[in-house]
């Protein structure tokens, strides 16, 4: 026990000494690591936010409004409606009459006054579809256009393929993000490795003596691994705080612009823990690689 404590104290003390003696290199290492952790954490949070927003959009977006011609007979409409109802791609269909359309539109005061001026109701009746998949929207769009009962001037209303494209973009962002994260991870391991090499180099006499008098490899290694872990931890704490602050500002700014991005507390906490553990792990691993060469002799 006494021995373990003394070893731990020796390792901690040496790690702190290394950090201070090579303060410039250590701080540069911590700063670069911090920047990388910030980039990883920031992009993860950003993708997550975009994802959340898009998922909400997807639910809104699987709507299709089919405008009906004023000349369409009620029988033809009912026929079309029941055909849609039995279509497996469809979740629900509702029929909106001209009057309902007018009522709906009148909620907006300027439209209400415009309608009052017109005297008649120019708004068409419509069938409102909810479909199971976004990709069905374009299929229904094409089918509707071929129907004689559908208003030929403005047959349908839906978000066309914007959503689909955004989805592709998200997938691409996620892939690119993953690849960049792996590259950044490798870079941070190399950075830690080189920081530790500097520390090892400035302690080469000490290491030589340790090996000569019969210290074990792990005894030689621990101070450097602790130093790497310390660096990783510091980097993760600082960049984690910055990521957290930036995320809050982002959410606030987005809400100011009517784009409702929810503040996901659970995701954020998980992310911060992952960043901390990741920073420490990367620090330990980089240091391990950094001292390895000097111990093999």
């Amino acid at each position, binding site marked *: 026990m*006494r*021995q*373990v*404590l*003394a*070893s731990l104290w*020796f390792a901690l003390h040496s790690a702190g000494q290394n950090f201070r003696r090579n303060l410039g290199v250590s701080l540069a290492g911590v700063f670069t690591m911090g920047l990388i952790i910030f980039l990883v954490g920031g992009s993860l949070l950003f993708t997550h936010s975009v994802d959340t927003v898009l998922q909400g959009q997807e639910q809104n977006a699987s709507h299709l409004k089919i405008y009906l011609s004023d000349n369409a007979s009620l029988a033809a409409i009912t026929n079309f409606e029941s055909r849609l109802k039995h279509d497996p791609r469809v979740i629900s269909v509702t029929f909106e009459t001209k009057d309902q359309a007018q009522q709906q539109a009148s909620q907006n005061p300027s439209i209400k006054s415009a309608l009052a001026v017109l005297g008649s109701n120019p708004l068409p009746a419509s069938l409102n579809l909810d479909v199971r998949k976004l990709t069905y929207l374009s299929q229904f769009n094409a089918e509707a256009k071929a129907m004689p009962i559908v208003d030929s001037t403005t047959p349908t209303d839906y978000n066309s393929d914007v959503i689909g494209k955004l989805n592709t973009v998200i997938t691409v962002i996620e892939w690119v993000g993953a690849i960049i994260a792996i590259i950044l991870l490798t870079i941070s391991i190399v950075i830690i490795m080189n920081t530790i090499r500097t520390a090892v180099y400035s302690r080469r*006499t*000490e290491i*030589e*003596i*340790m*090996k*000569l*008098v*019969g*210290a*074990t*490899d792990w*005894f*030689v290694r621990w101070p450097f691994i602790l130093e790497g872990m310390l660096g990783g931890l510091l980097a993760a704490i600082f960049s984690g705080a910055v990521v957290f602050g930036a995320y809050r500002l982002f959410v606030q700014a987005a809400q100011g612009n009517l784009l409702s991005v929810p503040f996901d507390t659970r995701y954020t906490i998980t992310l911060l823990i992952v960043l901390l553990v990741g920073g420490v792990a990367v620090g330990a691993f980089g240091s391990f690689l950094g001292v390895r060469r000097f111990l093999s*002799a």
Partner: protein
Amino acid sequence: MSVAVAERSAAPPQHALRPVISFHGVSKVYPNGTEALRDVDLAIHQGDFCFLVGPSGAGKSTLVRLLIRDEAPSTGRIFIDGQEVSRMSHRKLPKLRRKFGIVFQDYKLLTRRTVAQNVAFALQVTRPGQRHMREKVEEVLWIVGLEDKLDKFPDELSGGEQQRVAIARALVHRPRIFLADEPTGNLDPDTSWGIVQLLLQINHRGTTVLMATHNREVVDLVRRRVIAIDNGRVVRDEAEGSYLREGTATL
């Protein structure tokens, strides 16, 4: 083996025991092709004091490095205390090295630590948390005659004093074998003589001492066992030898 038998007549009784160091047909070829040692056979017994002499580049340091398994021999076998070190696993090296105390021409002191801290360092990294560390450190510093320099830093000391600190550090874990590779290489004759006296004193306490040197005066004054190496070969092994072969100008 023949060497050990030949010497037995002049040797104290404990020499009948198994040698503490033995080399059997040891050669060392460095990766660049340099043949540093060729077919070396050697036996050194507990309590021996040996000079390892020879010109620069003869292979003295290589022999020392093989002993502490800093390098592995290319062929042959080396035993320390009956344990074969030539094929020892990396994991066992710390234990092997604790049997040795070793000093070099450059003293390898830590400049940011005091004399006492330099000596204590050897204990801290091998036996962390050991009790009575301070007393042990003071005791060895008293043996080397530096009991009044405990809190000085190495660059406040003379070369001879620095080498004494290195000797104290090598002694603090009570090694069975003391290795000194050109310990007087950087010192003037008087100081060198003081260091050799100290090594003899350490030997007198029962520790086996092997000192590699090309300091002719010292070897000729002390007249102890001399192992001469030239071009990687043991060319002479005498119980009470001099630096050069008696009555000649060659090793």
